[in-house]
């Protein structure tokens, strides 16, 4: 199971811009690596990363083979209201990895 690490403030002032940092363990085989026999190791990457905030999409990344192993992403969002953010990664092989965090807005 991919280990996921997310750093996001637990509380924020209304409409404060907060920084979110995410890390998910994944080999991100870009399809250009080769094994000990020189044969290509097939592509196997996380191709999409979506973040919703109380159901509204606030960040959408299409990931490509150039994304390094263990994808790391830092982005921002406006703390509009207290609620739940859901982080979802979609894998080439169809599996889905997700996690949620809540944020309280005074």
């Amino acid at each position, binding site marked *: 199971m991919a280990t996921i690490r997310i750093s996001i403030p637990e509380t924020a002032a209304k409409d404060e811009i907060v920084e979110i940092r995410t890390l998910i363990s994944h080999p991100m085989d*870009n399809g*250009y*690596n*080769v094994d*000990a*026999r*020189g*044969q*290509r190791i097939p592509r196997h990457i996380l191709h999409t990363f979506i973040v919703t905030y109380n159901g509204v999409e606030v960040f959408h990344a299409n990931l490509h083979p150039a994304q*390094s*192993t*263990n994808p790391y992403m830092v982005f921002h969002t406006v703390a509009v209201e207290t609620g739940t953010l859901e982080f979802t990664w979609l894998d080439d092989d169809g599996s889905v990895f997700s996690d949620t965090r809540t944020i309280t807005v005074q």
Partner: protein
Amino acid sequence: MNIHNVSRRKFIVTSATAAGGMMLGFNLPAQAAQMNANPWELPTDKEGQEVNAWLAIDPDGTVTIRVGQSEMGEGVFTSMPMIVAEELHVDWKMVKAAYASGNRYLRQKAEDYQVAAGILNEDHQVYRRMGTGGSGAVRRSRTFLQQAGASARERLKEAAAQAWGVARADVTAKDSVLSSGNRTGTFAEFATAASTVALDVEPVIKTPDQFNLLGASVARLDTPLKVNGSATYGIDIRLPGMVYAAVRANPVPYGGIDSYDADAIMGLPGVIQVVEIVPGEGQDLRSGLQPAVAVIANSYTRALSALDQMPIKWSATPNDGVNSRDLFADANAALGMPGAISVDEGDTAGAIAGATTVVEGDYQAPYQSHACMEPFNCTVHITDNRADVYGSFQNPPGALAVVAEQLGMDPINVFSHTTFLGGGFGRRSRNDEPRQAAEIARQVGRPVKMVWTREEDMMQNKMRPMAVARFKAGLGPDGMPVGWHARVAGHSITAHIRPERIENGLDNSLLAAVRNHPYNIPNQLVDMHVRNSHIPVHYWRSVNASQNVFMAEQFVDEMAQAGGHDPLDFRLKMVEDLEDWSLVLNTLKEKSGWTTDLPPGTGMGIGISEEFGTVVGQVATVTVSRRGQLTIDKIVAAVDCGHLVNPAIAEGQIESAIVYGLSACLAGEVTISGGQVVENNFDTFKVLRINEMPIIETHWALTGGDKWGGLGEPGLPPVAAAVANAIFYATGKRPREMPIVHTDLSWG
């Protein structure tokens, strides 16, 4: 006669070295300019004036010419300044060399005069290329070094012209003196003015027929420092407050550490701390930390003895069972299967099937170690927002990049200082060791010099890959080849370092000197297999040609013998449409007294190849006793590198490559057992010593023109083949495996 006044005519220059005498060229008097023992870029001792990034002129007239390549014996600390001086018209006695700054290479783009002259474009870095490899120093730097000298010369002349109120064309520059009519002035006087002069048109650089200094065997600038022990190598760095680190990794490369008992040694004299090195996320074999443990102490010997006494339990690894025998068996098995195709011309299978005679030959070459005389070391000093890294770098920007990455610092704040290198041979262009030193320094928080023992240097080396090959050819009724198939299986460096450049299993560099052999054979098929193990690999002097020529050129002899031809004439016939190869072969024929008509136990053998633009042919003369005792009597080399910058240094490189190649084909090898390197010091890793040294003659067969071939490596590949082919004529036995010590040569 200066070699280069005779440009078009092809000629042969002999500079036999029996007593080191130079037939041509001359030694200028000892340098007036005093070289710095610390060769890295220093602010010139006196308030010197920088005319451009490549040269600064002191008030006393000393000219410091900066060198982008690393001085590891190949003479770039002399040959590169000669190229600048040729155009600058400086008094050579006033020239001294210092390294160009790796940090400045980062921060500054190409200078305007280089862009205006069309030599560099604006996106190139100021020093353009600071890695040293591929024997490319002269070929890849010549034009912008000549431009640096020419543009500085014209600016000095312009400054004098403006001061004297004359036209620049009326000012001449010769031996650091500017003159016009009865007025004279020195470069030093006009250096400051010259640094701000703008020229509307940049001067055009000279062509070889106009050279005066280039082509002369001037004395090496670094020799005075290397005969009194003052030259500074990486291992010699001493910084205030510096501590020492002895480090050890799992003997099975990239294996882990189960446990170590630091408390057991903390009380030993001088021990400061124990540091564990853990690979970061995403770091892998290509460039990353291996799990390792280091003892830090106030002297190296104390750090090392504590490390030796510290109980360490290495983890088991998936590679504990790997050994050379199985690796060779696996690679040889691949020779029976079609591989990734590199060359496919005509109908090779058909041609061989219909041939009068079919010839086959299998060959094998092991992993090989660089074994530079200076074991690996690196010194890193971190201050608040800056890091300085000192060492014997073959790729200073690479070392700088690695230290910046490991410390999470912006490369702009990292300064690499290159020392003299105690040998590089390709190994020091890999920078895992500066990364390791940076990680140790980060944890220690003081300047630290990391030094590897010879054993660590050998066991954690990035090896010259192993390879096996099978050749098959069909000969027509006239005994000449109608079809030729070569298949190589081996450990691929590209697959290890740049896997994305492997397209369906093909790595052309593994086929160097096999894919691009010179012979005019109608039907050719060349294919290959990648067979990598966990052993890291890297560039070794002449890379894969060092094994491929041993294999391919022996097979050419096998074809010659099967076809009833003299091996040298056989080669001449197949390269008769190639001017440079024919000149080298004919020179060899004449200079070596070539013959196969020799008494049993004596033999002459030939080997020829091209690498980095230079064709080198060699004839070896050997004696083999009945009991199989081999003596290399003489090696005669003929070389076409097009032009020579410094014949004495160039000859030294051919001789050096021959000795390095002999060490790797006679008895030296690296075998793997239990996933580890077996030969981990000079007791088991055999290298050629003075008592085994043959007579070596180097003959230049220069075709000039626009040929600028490399010299550091091309001299190596032919020697193993020449020796092996000579052994066949002496004993009737063909050593198909490197090193030759594995073959019983007894005869009669």
